[in-house]
């Protein structure tokens, strides 16, 4: 049995399709990440899994239960840590956890022991009786995550767990997430738009863009699929540009070429052998190479290769009216 399973899941708001016919499954005990830019459909998908939104079409099962027909059982089996920190500032750390424990029907005689356990895990035991107002951003996030763990859910959902935190705090949160994963053996489903986060935490990643899953694989395989090296070159284009591309494609080690004006990105293996060949072709065709470099692929490159654009919000593609219409529908 899978921890999460979807079949042709679709969610539209009017004529805007936020999640477009996605099917995938997450194994028990896996850390699975949805990687994509803002507005790609990550949060919408997570809201369907956590029973906050009903899908327009298709099915989703969490912990074996249908999110529509058995929403109560789904809620009993999940922990959900939202993107915004949702801890109550007026209450102390411990009171926040007590509230969370009661919301999740933890038996009375176990509550204190469970709270001690998670406080110890997130290293907030010494601050537990202080008001959350005095906590730093990172501490609040840890407390929020702890709240999602108290009832030992089968699946833990983390929506952008480190957004808005500085890099040291982010690393610290990653450590906690890994610790949680080993200690409780939970399935963790997270969304992120940080490559580094997906790379360091996830067993498998789904790249999602415009409501569609572009690819699902392990970070390692994704990088290997691109070949293990990347050659970036900037050229001075002339009329032979097209034949230059044709010739490059004939080089056996090159797996993929991305063009962005005068900048070419070649995904390849055996880069050191490919470079002399590039020079040979360019001199035959009279194309001047302004710069060339050889690097190891990062998940950033993987993202670009599958979506054709970088993960940062692309202004030219950002349609203000479309986004506005979407927000309006969401608020109705």
């Amino acid at each position, binding site marked *: 049995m899978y921890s999460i399973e979807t079949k042709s899941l679709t969610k539209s708001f009017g004529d805007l399709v936020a999640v477009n016919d996605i099917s995938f499954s997450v194994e028990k005990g896996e850390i699975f990440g949805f990687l994509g830019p803002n507005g790609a459909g990550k949060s919408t998908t997570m809201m369907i899994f956590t029973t906050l939104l009903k899908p327009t079409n298709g099915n989703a099962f969490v912990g074996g239960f249908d999110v529509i027909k058995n929403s109560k059982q789904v809620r009993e089996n999940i922990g959900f840590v939202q993107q915004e920190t949702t801890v109550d500032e007026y*209450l102390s750390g411990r009171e926040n956890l007590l509230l969370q424990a009661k919301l999740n029907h933890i038996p009375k005689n176990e509550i204190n022991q469970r709270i001690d356990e998670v406080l110890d895990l997130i290293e907030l035991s010494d601050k537990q009786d202080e008001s959350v107002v005095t906590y730093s951003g990172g501490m609040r996030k840890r407390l929020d995550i702890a709240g999602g763990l108290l009832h030992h859910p089968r699946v833990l959902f983390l929506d952008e767990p480190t957004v808005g935190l500085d890099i040291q705090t982010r690393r610290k949160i990653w450590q906690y997430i890994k610790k949680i994963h080993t200690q409780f053996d939970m399935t963790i489903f997270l969304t992120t738009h940080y490559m580094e986060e997906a790379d360091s935490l996830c067993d498998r990643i789904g790249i999602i863009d415009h409501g569609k899953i572009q690819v699902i694989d392990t970070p390692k395989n994704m990088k290997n699929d691109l070949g293990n090296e990347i050659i970036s070159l900037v050229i001075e284009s002339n009329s032979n540009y097209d034949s230059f591309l044709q010739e490059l494609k004939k080089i056996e080690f090159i797996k993929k070429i991305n063009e962005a004006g005068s900048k070419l990105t070649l995904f390849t293996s055996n880069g050191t052998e490919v470079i002399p060949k590039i020079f040979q072709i360019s001199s035959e065709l009279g194309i001047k190479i302004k710069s060339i470099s050889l690097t190891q692929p990062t998940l950033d490159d993987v993202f670009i290769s599958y979506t054709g654009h970088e993960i940062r919000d692309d202004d030219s593609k950002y349609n203000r009216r479309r986004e506005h219409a979407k927000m309006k529908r969401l608020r109705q």
Partner: protein
Amino acid sequence: MNTIAYDAYTIFWRELKRYKKSRSGVLIRLIQPAIWIIVVGNIFSETQPLIQSVGFEGEYIEFMAPGVIILTAIFTSIFGGVNTLWDRRYGFMNKALTSPISRSAIAIGKMSAISLIAALQASLIIGIALAIGVTFPNPLMIIPIMGIVILFSLGFSGISVTLAATAKSQETFWGMINLLGMPLFMLSPALFPLELLPDWLAVVAKLNPVTYTILLVRELMTGVSEGGVPILISVGVIFAFVVAMVGIASYVFTREVNKPF
């Protein structure tokens, strides 16, 4: 049923914790009713002949004290639902909605907390009234009066939670509250006897649950029956109002929170 009670208590507990931690809020809520009873109570003290004409022997301030106690209850409870909007904005609502507790338990927990807070505020106003010389012929009457205030506030918190669940913005919510709160207070015998209202206003006032609550509290507090409404009718109207509002609020709340905010 048992779990609904447990869940409602969880929400109730959280709301009261938040109330306890905001000491400034306790005082701010007292300012308006305190002004009413101290300032308006004294400005209108010369109107004693008017209230005597309907058989009320005491000072004007003693006549209007029940009105101000209910004013406190009205405004504390009708404002009380506003944190529903904050909860939806800042994620607590989603946290509660993704946990196994039922939606109506959230609404009921909120309403009970608001009504208890309103009653606490009203009891502080009773304290102020006593301090400025209002007397109770029978001090034991304070117990049924508090009971009525709690019940009445529960009904008004229902109005508040219903509006807060439907409103998508703070502005809409406050607009609706202002539209409702003051007229409901003014169209009641809070400041002047029902008998002195023009006929058409008296008809409107008789449709207002606030009227029956004030008449009842005034009778318990001063021993003077006014307006010719029997106690049982007043109690019946208050009960019906509360049952209707709690029902409507639970239904509307459950329906509205299932929609994305």
